[in-house]
């Protein structure tokens, strides 16, 4: 079994969720790397696009922001914000979009907070805010979220609900008037999680090699079903080779 870092495993665990032909919305950092890995390993016909309007960027170098000039080079279309968000809200294209996100807090229904910790009006910690995250989470067919597995991040109640997941579970998302679609997967430094088809509650789908379900539950602020979990397959030599040599040779993201 090859050597690999936790970050490499996380990246590949998310990349494996992307199907060939998906339109992949991503930010920067590990979410971009997962999209690049998917395109280079599992989903050659997937199209990566950025909220800034860049479609199918070549990405010879890793961009450090979604407005990095590196996303503008050798695209199929250089558009604008209005175009890119319309593509996600559009009823023909939106359902085929997979959004890869991150956040400061997540709850058991996959709702995300990237705005404030503490009281919104007197925040203990202020973050960047939604950006396009709320739009993506509102519009697209599937979202995958990267998180660090910590109690303060997996919380019973968000301090601020920035991006809608399954809201209060069950059919509450539909009742709120949001399009079909929503969170399908959460990938952390310990595990992968999904959401129950009917209750929409988070449950454990996979634990990383060497990690037990108990370790995982000890690191989160709410309980979840672990009965359906299997060990996550470690990266293959091929996956690692492509990830390291094609996606991030400078290890700007892999570190």
């Amino acid at each position, binding site marked *: 079994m090859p050597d690999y870092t936790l970050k490499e495993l996380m990246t590949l665990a998310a990349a494996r969720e992307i199907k060939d032909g998906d339109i992949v919305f991503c930010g920067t950092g590990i979410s971009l790397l997962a999209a690049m890995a998917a395109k280079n390993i599992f989903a050659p016909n997937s199209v990566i696009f950025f909220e800034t309007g860049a479609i199918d960027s070549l990405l010879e170098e890793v961009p450090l922001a979604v407005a990095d000039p590196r996303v503008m080079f050798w695209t199929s279309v250089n558009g604008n914000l209005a175009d890119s968000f319309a593509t996600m809200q559009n009823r023909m294209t939106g359902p085929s979009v997979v959004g890869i996100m991150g956040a400061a807090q997540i709850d058991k229904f996959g709702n995300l907070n990237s705005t404030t910790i503490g009281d919104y009006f007197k*925040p203990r910690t202020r973050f960047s805010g*939604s950006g396009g995250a*709320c739009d993506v989470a509102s519009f697209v067919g599937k979202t995958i979220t990267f998180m660090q597995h910590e109690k303060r991040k997996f919380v019973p109640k968000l301090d601020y609900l920035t991006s*809608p997941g399954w809201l209060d579970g069950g059919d509450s998302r539909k009742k709120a008037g949001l399009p079909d679609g929503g969170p399908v997967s959460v990938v952390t430094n310990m595990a992968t999680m999904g959401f129950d088809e009917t209750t929409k509650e988070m449950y454990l789908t996979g634990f990383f090699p060497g990690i037990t379900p108990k370790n995982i539950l000890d690191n989160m602020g709410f309980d979840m079903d672990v009965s359906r979990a299997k060990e996550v397959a470690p990266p293959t030599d091929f996956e690692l080779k492509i990830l390291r040599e094609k996606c991030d040779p400078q290890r700007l993201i892999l570190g």
Partner: protein
Amino acid sequence: MNISKDKTTSLSEAVDKFVHSGCHMSIGGFTINRNPMAAVYEIIRKKISNIHLYAHSNGHGVDELIGAGCVSRLEIAYAGSGRFAPTCIRFKKAVQAGTLVVEDYSNYQMTLRFMAGAMGVPFLPTRSSLGTDIVEKWGFSEQMRSEDQRLPDQKLLVIDNPFGSWGDTPKLVLVPAINCDVTLIHVQKADREGTVRMEGLTFSDVEQAKCAKHVIVTCEELVEPEFLKAFSDQNQIPSFCVDAVVHIPHGAYPTACYRYYDYDPAYLNQYRKYAEDEKPYETYLKDFVYGMKDHRGLLDKVGRAQLDTIKADPRTGYAVGLDRR
């Protein structure tokens, strides 16, 4: 709205004429790309204050304006500078200190609000943010809104689809138009009449320009009208939308300008260090902003050698192999 045939002027004159304390202003660009930094620094030097600022995802320009105390209210979707500051530092401090009032929207919502202003309608609809705190929590209270003619009475409105089941869309969020006093954008090419050509992604600069009473354009290259007319499919903003054209090479520095120069990792990393604490930040402002006569002064201080490292490679439009750690 201005039809003069020569709108070229100095940045100082343009800012004196169109940017005033208490004005409602929007700036173009996105995070670390094409922020109108020369104009931002000029506004800071002129100590213009109490600005009501609109932006979608800036970024470095927003953080410098906040850090220098120019901004009292901010309507924004995302205040970050990518890897160099996932959350803008002076923004974060100002919000946590309660010295800046923020109204949070999503990126698409801010784009739609600029677009509504550009289209001349009071709102546009979207399905974004239903069921979230973007709908529930208003940074500007109802009272603050009712007392200020410049603010819509509602942050946004959730309505049932007036066309029933048409479009399988039961509910919508209506976001109010933005019509600001002035918009500042930095572009690759403009002519003296004000026609603009941006290269690469345009972000929401076109909508931001068209929703404003006045528009200041700073440009890398001031070209002849004939140059732009020969390939007018590539021009985005008509001259009559623009009030002032200022030729400022490196006018987006330290943010990037596609096909001209990259963002400057060295400057942005150094800025982060200064921004972390009050004393160093005062030093930063003194040494890099107030101490400069103009943008040229900053570029000279940074030095040709450092600017050469971010020079765009003609094939890709950015600085290939630039050390970005």
